[in-house]
């Protein structure tokens, strides 16, 4: 930790070396304790309400627009442009996939399938690292914003860079587990089809439960400097006992993200002629449509990506305060009255 012990994981064993601090004389007239909560940064340091977490993310974006919206705009712009360039040659074949019938020759079906697969592959190769980079950066920004520390892009980056590989590894665990599970399911489906259906149905709630349980691993990794395994353990510890609360807030954030994306991209899709397909024959997307939807996607991503990352970081902060009394610790460190 380079900037203060605020996010350090609490030490389960009390330090035997720790001596009671001597009673130094304070300032002659110490300020009287205030009624409100200590609020060094964007949120008050006390257990938060749901709307405080959601609005806190917006407040953070408004209070620090350059490291949130600015950085997110640049990263999303670059990644969307890369995606557009890389996937443009494939779009004809993908467009044809929607008109496949029984009469389509097998070569065309194969070409459409191959194009769709490479499209998904390119999205994974370009989209995932940029997403990881951005969410790591924004998590550190949110951590500093909560504590009211000054935020410089260079300094944040110097904290993010050494953790980047670990964060990528942490994020890759999800697709790896999903891939493994679907392979097992595939083998099972070949062997005992009815059992595979039952297992698949049972896996959905299990996957959801695990996803929410480990959803605070990214802030734990970035802010506590935990290793990958420890970060998962910390997330489990923080979420356990309030799984439904974390699930509900994350679901709400997801709904807000979807609504924002739909509203922001809808005008671009409309002017690009995307709604014409409802009334006419399906056709491969035109260049105008692609350019306009990419612009819409960039604007929407610029707003929604910081929102999701900061909500996760604030949720983590809230659980730290609820489960571990971090607000009391921070107030003692600051030498100021807690809530």
């Amino acid at each position, binding site marked *: 930790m380079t900037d203060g012990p605020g996010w350090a994981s*609490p*030490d*389960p*064993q*009390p330090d035997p070396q*720790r*001596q*009671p*601090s*001597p*009673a130094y004389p*304070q300032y002659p007239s*110490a300020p*009287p*304790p205030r009624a*409100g909560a200590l*609020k060094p940064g964007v949120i*008050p340091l*006390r*257990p*938060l*309400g749901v*709307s*405080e977490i*959601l*609005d806190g*993310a*917006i*407040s953070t*974006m*408004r209070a620090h627009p350059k490291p949130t919206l600015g950085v997110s705009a640049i990263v999303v712009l670059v990644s969307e442009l890369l995606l557009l360039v890389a996937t443009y040659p494939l779009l004809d074949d993908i467009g044809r996939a929607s008109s496949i019938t029984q009469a389509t020759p097998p070569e065309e079906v194969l070409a459409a399938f191959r194009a769709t697969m490479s499209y998904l592959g390119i999205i994974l190769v370009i989209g995932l690292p940029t997403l990881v980079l951005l969410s790591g950066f924004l998590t550190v920004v949110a951590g500093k914003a909560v504590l009211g520390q000054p935020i410089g892009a260079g300094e944040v980056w110097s904290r993010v860079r050494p953790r980047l590989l670990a964060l990528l590894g942490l994020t890759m665990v999800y697709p790896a587990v999903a891939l493994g599970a679907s392979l097992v399911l595939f083998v099972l489906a070949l062997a005992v089809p009815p059992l595979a259906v039952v297992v698949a149905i049972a896996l959905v709630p299990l996957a959801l439960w695990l996803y929410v349980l480990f959803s605070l691993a990214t802030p734990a990794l970035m802010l506590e400097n935990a290793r990958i395994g420890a970060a998962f353990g910390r997330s489990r*510890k923080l979420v356990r006992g309030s799984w439904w609360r974390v699930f509900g807030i994350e679901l*709400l*954030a997801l*709904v*807000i993200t979807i*609504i*924002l994306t739909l*509203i*922001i991209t*809808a*005008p671009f899709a409309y002017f690009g002629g995307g709604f014409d397909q409802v009334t006419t024959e399906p056709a491969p997307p035109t260049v105008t449509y692609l350019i306009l939807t990419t612009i819409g996607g960039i604007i929407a991503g610029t*707003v929604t990506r910081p*929102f999701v990352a900061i909500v996760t970081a604030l949720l983590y902060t809230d659980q730290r305060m*609820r*489960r*571990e*009394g971090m*607000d*009391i*610790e921070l*107030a*003692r460190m600051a*030498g*100021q*009255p*807690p*809530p």
Partner: protein
Amino acid sequence: MSDLVTGEAVVLDLRLARLASRGVAVAIDVLVQAVVLLVVLLLFLAGAGSVDPALRAAIGVVVVAAVLVGYPVLFETLSRGRSPGKAALGLRVVRDDGGPIRFRQALVRGLTGFFVDFWVFGLLGSVAIFVSLASAKGKRVGDLLAGTVVVAERIPAAETPAVTMPPALAGWASGLDVAAVPDDLALAVRQYLGRYHRLDPAARDALGARLAAEVGGHLGVPLPSEAWAPHYLAAVLAERRARERARHAAPPPPAGESTGDDPFAPPR
């Protein structure tokens, strides 16, 4: 730390609602409006066979306007700023100075919402989103024109538990110099005791030991055993409160020389 200041420069302890919670509230309201419109449409279709086309169009316009504009105006006027979506999220529309809104403000907000923020020229809400993001107080165009702001009323209740003296420690605590514990530390201890049962055991013990050590440093008497930290903290806090109460209950000391019994006595 507050976001709202009245015309008399009184700082109000209210929290402004931002895009996220306001968006959810609007989404709930739109859902209710859609259901109302759907029901009206179905009723209309059931009995529309014999109606003149011009009349049908006129009724359609009136119904859509009544639902999209009338709904927020009606609810925000009658409930002083809470449409059903806002009530669900614990939000309320208030004037810029914190006062309750009236029909005037609700009408401006409703009309602007229909024409500028959401529907007619609003690109389905894009205008509201970007104006709200750009505004320091999270206002949409309707708020700017009406001079209103949306605040969050539902703030988590502060936890201020009553601390009781553990009977076994009453004698020990009565000999302590509890006035040496500063107010902010006492507040931290009270917070800690109030949330004791909801904290994670490992973090709870570490924090308790830390607070106990700090209290012990102020008292000059190290707390006997770390395992019993919460009990000792409770004893110190209860003793501190009991003495404070006794001090306030005592009669005030005589305020110096009396100036005489007769208020109309001439000045000396």
